[in-house]
């Protein structure tokens, strides 16, 4: 599957000009609210007709204003999971799930039967309930199942976790991961959460003020996406669990990391996202400090920022790490590119990949 988007749409003073191609896997549309992510997804889903442009799946045009093509939403076979689940209040969970299934009969695309989807999302016990009686997390799982059962060629998810609290988010994230890895349906995922994108995305598309500012694999793009704070992602693997202190030990190119116990087997790959502001630098290997994780590296570059701070890019045995220091610290430690340093990592956001 490939999705090509090249559209130009104006609404009042806001202008959306976007052009990108999404590869298989999960493509995250990342940006602040008001950057045009939802409008873009609505154009792909057929809920908005763009002023000009082209949207195509596998070369098959859904919108082509030059040739007067506009396939209506109900004939696109694009699943849509909304932020506000939008379950039909007068239908049971089962009938909600099967609503689109019937229209998709005879259609190709990702095969999905009720049993598989129920198992994938763990919603078997909810079938005879009504949407009113479901929790936010349950609603979103049903909404995802409903979209899948319509046998979509592509699934759009517009901040599906935004209305949920942290616990409910943690409950749904694994399901979206399984969806990405097992169901084989390409996903276009709107988010403004770095943690979600780090954990889920294969490809990241960054949007700002109606334009796309960067597209690429998550490892390359995410540090840019987190521009306000900066950060870096390490690919790692769980090497063992420390039962006594409830820690998991990870191995990455940059070195060993000890983190609060992760719920994954030994050997599982993990993505560790380390924010630049959570990294301190030291010229000698620090002894007797509380931080568990100290990584050795070499300064690759120093970029001053506007606010008397500097972003230090570290090369830790091939892996990139970012640190944000005050300009004064840079001066005091006489940091220059090429200088060996030790990075003290205060905290890590760990994302299973």
């Amino acid at each position, binding site marked *: 599957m490939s999705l090509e988007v090249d559209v130009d749409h104006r609404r009042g003073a806001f202008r959306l000009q976007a052009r990108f191609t999404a590869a298989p896997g999960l493509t995250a549309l990342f940006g602040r609210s008001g950057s045009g992510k939802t409008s873009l997804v609505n154009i792909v*889903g*057929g*809920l908005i007709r763009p002023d000009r442009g082209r949207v195509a799946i596998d070369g098959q045009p859904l919108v082509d204003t030059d040739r007067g093509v506009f396939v*209506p*939403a*109900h*004939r*696109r*076979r*694009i*699943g*849509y999971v*909304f932020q*506000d689940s*939008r379950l*039909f*209040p*007068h239908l*049971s969970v089962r009938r909600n799930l099967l*609503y*689109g299934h019937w*229209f*998709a009969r005879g259609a190709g695309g990702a095969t999905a039967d009720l049993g598989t989807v129920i198992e994938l999302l763990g919603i078997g016990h909810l079938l005879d309930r*009504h949407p*009113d009686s479901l929790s936010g997390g349950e609603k979103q799982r049903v909404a995802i199942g*409903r*979209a899948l059962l*319509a046998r979509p060629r592509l699934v759009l998810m517009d901040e599906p976790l935004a209305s949920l609290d942290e616990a409910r988010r943690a409950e749904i994230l694994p399901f979206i991961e399984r969806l990405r890895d097992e169901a084989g349906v390409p996903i276009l995922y709107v988010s403004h959460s770095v943690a979600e994108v780090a954990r889920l995305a294969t490809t990241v598309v960054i949007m700002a003020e109606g334009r796309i500012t960067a597209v690429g694999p998550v490892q390359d793009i995410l540090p840019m996406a987190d521009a306000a704070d900066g950060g870096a992602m390490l690919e790692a693997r769980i090497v063992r669990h420390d039962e006594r202190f409830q820690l998991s030990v990870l191995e990455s190119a940059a070195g060993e990391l000890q983190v609060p116990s992760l719920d994954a087997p030994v050997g599982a790959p993990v993505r560790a996202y380390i924010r630049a502001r959570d990294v301190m630098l030291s010229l000698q290997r620090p002894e007797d400090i509380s931080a568990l994780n100290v990584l050795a590296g070499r300064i690759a570059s120093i970029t001053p920022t506007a606010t008397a701070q500097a972003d230090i890019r570290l090369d830790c045995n091939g892996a990139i790490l970012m640190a944000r220091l005050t300009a004064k610290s840079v001066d005091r430690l006489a940091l220059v590119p090429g200088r060996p340093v030790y990075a003290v990592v205060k905290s890590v956001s760990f994302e299973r990949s």
Partner: protein
Amino acid sequence: MTPDEWTAVRLSLLIATTATLCSLPFGIAIAWLLARGRFWGKSLLDTLVHLPLILPPVVTGYLLLLSFGRRGPIGGFLAEEFGIVFSFRWTGAALACAVMGFPLLVRAVRLSIEAVDQRLEAAAGTLGAHPLWVFATITLPLCLPGIIAGAILAFAKSMGEFGATITFVSNIPGETQTLPTLIYTLTQVPGGDAAAMRLTLVSIAISMLALLGSELLAKRIGARRQTA
């Protein structure tokens, strides 16, 4: 009650039921147009629909007589082409009642359609449902309480309709004499008071039953939505 009185009650029920059921599809269609449509002349249509509510019923009845009478442009055409005759028939009474109840029906249905979350309809569209299906499976069920309320209003209006009916189809016993027109007739003749009182009580009973029925129905729909 005398056979004549029973006839009037039966006729009233028949006329009101026919008027309500026949105007329901049109009422829902017009209500949908007014709630969701964006077209030139929308406010004109809105005014037209509401006209029977503000015109004197006698005027509405007379306009019906002019247009749907045997020599009227529409009435003449229908009689010649399809053999459908309205003037001085119970069908004419039903037409008069339908027209008089129409604004009430449309208003109730329109409000309930406007209350349906259009985002749900969009969601149904993304699941592959054609707009007509979306209407039938999402919009219609969600505004069912409003439709029932509108239908009951139209039915009650039909049961009580007097001015337009008597002007259009007169007051012929066994054909167009309904509860209100019979009560009116009885109050005009000496010694008719007792019969008028009886029919008044019947009229009250029917209206209350209709209202009660609609309440029960609305409750059942509400309950089904909560628990099922």
